[in-house]
């Protein structure tokens, strides 16, 4: 590959969805043997661009040039044949199939049947030092291993260009390091790699070149030596405060005491396994861990959504376990669910209606069985300005708002009544940097008002930034509760279930005072 002919060139790619221009004349060049990072916020248009490249979307304008030849991709099959492979953010694996069957699918003849696919899996595994059983079923494998199957799938088609779409979102820090080593090995073998991410740390660690896109447009190239602050301000378009501003915690005596909490799923697995912890008023306990290690079930159990739970959840002397969701809410628990669109909001309802969703009984919004629209609308207007919700009016359907504004509606509702406990699950997932700053400041304000706060997050940066203490969950259990200044390496090991020697733990009072 000569440098005059980059392996892959995207020229003037434009993709519109109705009135929205997701990609606006984007140019991108990727050469063989380099890792090209595509950096941008959530919603900047990175995934759209890659779906155009992969043939899943058809571009409205522009062309894709591979090794000097203009390509026409009618579907992913064409892109694959041209040598473009993709490791998808949401794995494109069939859970009930084996590894070999997933690799075989779509290429049955080329691979020579299941036997050939098994052989291919073994061969590629050996090349990269994976230990993957070709006959293991995908749904039985941890996500980190599933991702390797995705990589094997792409490599089995001899991909010249390999796209990694937000590949680290589901990985522990150690798994992320391993993935980066794999990417470097691929690069050194001459593969052109496109690495899509919004995580600055990863970009700086691995990129040979960086292209930053914002609101569907390329804003420029950045040097891999740029500082995180420089990259962040390029990505967001203004100077950004990357650290969360907060004072040392001032503890109060109201608190949550969870003891020996165990939650079973439908087939009797302990998705939460004998968990005990305490949160005091005025502190943030962050629950860290890779997605799917029981965090969701733990927060749902606190809210009364898990019926097969045993143990005790004591909030200021009031036992919550066994109470209905209504009773838990009445006890003063505010809850930001993991998936705001599914569990947090009714998309077709207006902002005003969503803001009173959990207060449909009695004062202040309901009088004599009918909704007091004046009271509701006053409340909504007040929250609209207090939480800086960008919408045309309080009548706007919530489903039409951006992710950041939707999350502000959820926060405004949950923080809009007197609270005894605040639980936020993945509060900034999928939000832009501006909204993340706002959500973080609201969480800290809640803590400073003397309310116990639990934040569940899979983003280590967020955990470290917000927490007064950190509980790490792994396979349903708490590996340990440690001070907020614990090193990322230690946290990473704990997220994989290990307890490093000499681990400092943070018991409720000491840790919080430190």
């Amino acid at each position, binding site marked *: 590959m000569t440098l005059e002919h980059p392996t892959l060139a995207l020229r003037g790619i434009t993709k519109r*969805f109705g009135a929205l221009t997701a990609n606006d004349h984007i140019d991108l060049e990727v050469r063989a043997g380099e890792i090209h990072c595509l950096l941008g916020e959530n919603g900047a248009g990175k995934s759209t661009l890659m779906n155009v490249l*992969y043939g*899943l*979307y058809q571009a409205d304008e522009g062309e894709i040039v591979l090794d000097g030849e203009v390509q026409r991709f009618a*579907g*992913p*099959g*064409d892109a*694959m044949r041209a040598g473009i492979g*993709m490791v*998808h953010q949401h794995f*494109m*694996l*069939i*859970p*009930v*199939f084996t590894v070999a*069957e997933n690799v*075989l*699918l*779509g*290429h*049955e*003849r080329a691979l020579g049947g299941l036997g050939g696919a098994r052989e291919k899996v073994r061969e590629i595994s050996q090349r990269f*030092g*994976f*230990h*993957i*059983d070709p006959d*293991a079923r995908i749904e*039985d*494998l*941890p996500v*980190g*291993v599933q991702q390797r199957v995705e990589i094997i*799938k792409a490599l089995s088609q001899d991909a010249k260009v390999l796209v990694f779409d937000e590949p680290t979102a589901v990985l*522990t820090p*150690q*798994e992320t390091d*391993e993935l980066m080593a794999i990417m470097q090995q691929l690069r050194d073998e001459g593969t052109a790699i496109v690495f899509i991410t919004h995580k600055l740390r990863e970009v700086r660690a691995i990129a040979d070149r960086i292209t930053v896109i914002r609101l569907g447009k390329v804003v420029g190239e950045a040097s891999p030596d740029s500082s995180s602050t420089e990259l962040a301000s390029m990505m967001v378009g203004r100077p950004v405060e990357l650290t969360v501003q907060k004072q040392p915690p001032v503890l109060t005596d109201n608190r949550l005491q969870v003891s020996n909490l*165990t939650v*079973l799923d439908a*087939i*009797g*697995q*302990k*998705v939460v*396994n*004998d968990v005990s912890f305490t949160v005091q008023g005025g502190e943030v306990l962050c629950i860290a861990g890779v997605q799917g290690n029981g965090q969701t079930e733990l927060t749902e159990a606190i809210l009364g959504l898990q019926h097969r739970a045993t143990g005790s959840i004591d909030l200021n002397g009031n036992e919550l376990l066994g109470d209905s969701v209504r009773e838990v809410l009445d006890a003063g628990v505010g809850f930001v669910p993991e998936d705001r669109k599914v569990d947090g909001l009714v998309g077709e309802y207006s902002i005003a209606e969503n803001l009173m969703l959990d207060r449909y009984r009695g004062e202040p919004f309901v009088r004599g069985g009918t909704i007091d629209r004046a009271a509701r609308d006053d409340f909504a207007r007040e929250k609209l300005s207090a939480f800086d919700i960008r919408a045309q009016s309080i009548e706007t359907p919530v489903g039409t708002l951006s992710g950041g504004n939707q999350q502000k509606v959820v926060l405004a509702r949950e923080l809009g009544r007197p609270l005894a406990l605040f639980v936020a699950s993945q509060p900034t997932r999928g939000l832009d940097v501006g909204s993340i700053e706002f959500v973080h400041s609201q969480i800290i304000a809640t803590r400073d008002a003397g309310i116990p706060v639990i934040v569940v997050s899979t983003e280590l940066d967020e955990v470290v930034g917000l927490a007064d203490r950190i509980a790490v969950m*792994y*396979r*349903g*259990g708490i*590996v*340990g509760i440690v001070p907020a200044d614990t090193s990322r390496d230690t946290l990473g*090991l704990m997220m*994989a*279930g*290990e*307890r490093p020697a000499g681990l400092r733990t943070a018991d409720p009072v000491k840790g919080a005072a430190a």
Partner: protein
Amino acid sequence: MTAQQTTSAHGTTVETVELERAVVKHWKAPISYAVLTLVALVLLVVLGRDGSATLRLASGGDFFAIPDAVLPARATGVVVVVLLAALTALSFWAVATVRRLGAWLPIVFGVLFVVGFLTWAGAGSMIPIAGLLFATVGLSVPLIFGAMGGVLSERAGVVNIAIEAQLLGGAFTGAVVASATGSTIVGVVAAMLASVLVSMVLAVFAIRYFVEQVIVGVVLNVLVAGLTNFLYSSLLTDNPALNSPARLPKLPIPVLESIPLLGPALFKQSIIVYAMYIIVPLIAWGLFKTTWGLRLRAIGEHPLAADTVGIKVNRLRFWNVALAGAVAGLGGAYFTLDSNGSFTREMTAGLGYIALAAVIFGQWHPVKATAAALLFGFASALQQTLGAIGSPVPSEFMLMLPYVITLLAVAGFIGQSRAPAASGKPYVKQ
């Protein structure tokens, strides 16, 4: 705690994700057994009948004649109830000590219960067991073909409520075309084509226009019932010649037909039944061992993943739903060209829905679905046989039997079967 157990979990070792399990005891099975044992006790002992039931196990032409089994009703009842009670106790013990017993227990329990019931109902008369088995196979054939159509369609991601319409359309077309052309084979082909047509309507609405598949299926069932009723009364009643097809000849297979008990039931059948013996294993092999099956299952589980490897999801769905129709059409042809000999109004009588139940009960697996269909066929055959010998149970009550068994079977096992993940969900491309 978890932390101490796991020392070196991350890294390159492959491990399957297994959480610690709590002991959850499911008392559903033993309680069901206890209830059934109680029913048996009341029926066979408390309300026991005197006299003996003669179970005729032989039929003419066997290699050797198995002698009739003469069972005294009351004594047999006592023995059966004792055995059932023992099995129930075993089941309770297994749950209490968290042991797995395997599939033999429900089967043995069921066989014993049926034997007890037969001797009770047949006290003082003779029950032709060989005939009962023959009827079982006969009544199961359309169910099995229907179930295969359901398995294929749902595995490809399209819910097939329209099995009833496919059977009925096939039955009608098969009768008319075979009568008009004088060729039963042409009739069979026409039945398959008619059924494919019904499937294609389902496929177009479900795949192209994203209409809710259950609704399309139900509407098709009503539509085909209405259409065939109309054509039957306006066309066939005035032209009986159009509704008198030649029947497919029975083709006994030498030697095999003389196997005692099973020979006549299995090997003295028409070409359609023999085709079934080939089609069911063929579908099972094809689904799990061929490229076609791999792709078919992929589009029913995760169509987007299939799309990303270059599979044309909707096109493949369309043709597999059409294929499902062709298979179900054979079941339709069986009604008019084999078992009955002419078309009558709504002659499928809801069997399409029972076939659907067999699909679910059979966990979307061709062989298991066939076994489920045979169970439902047996229940219907039992009802017919007992009606013929004059059982003490009112025949109207006995008519419920197949459906009660279907209901119990589906309700009891439905939690354990998992549908193809994308079944019923249209695949919409941006």
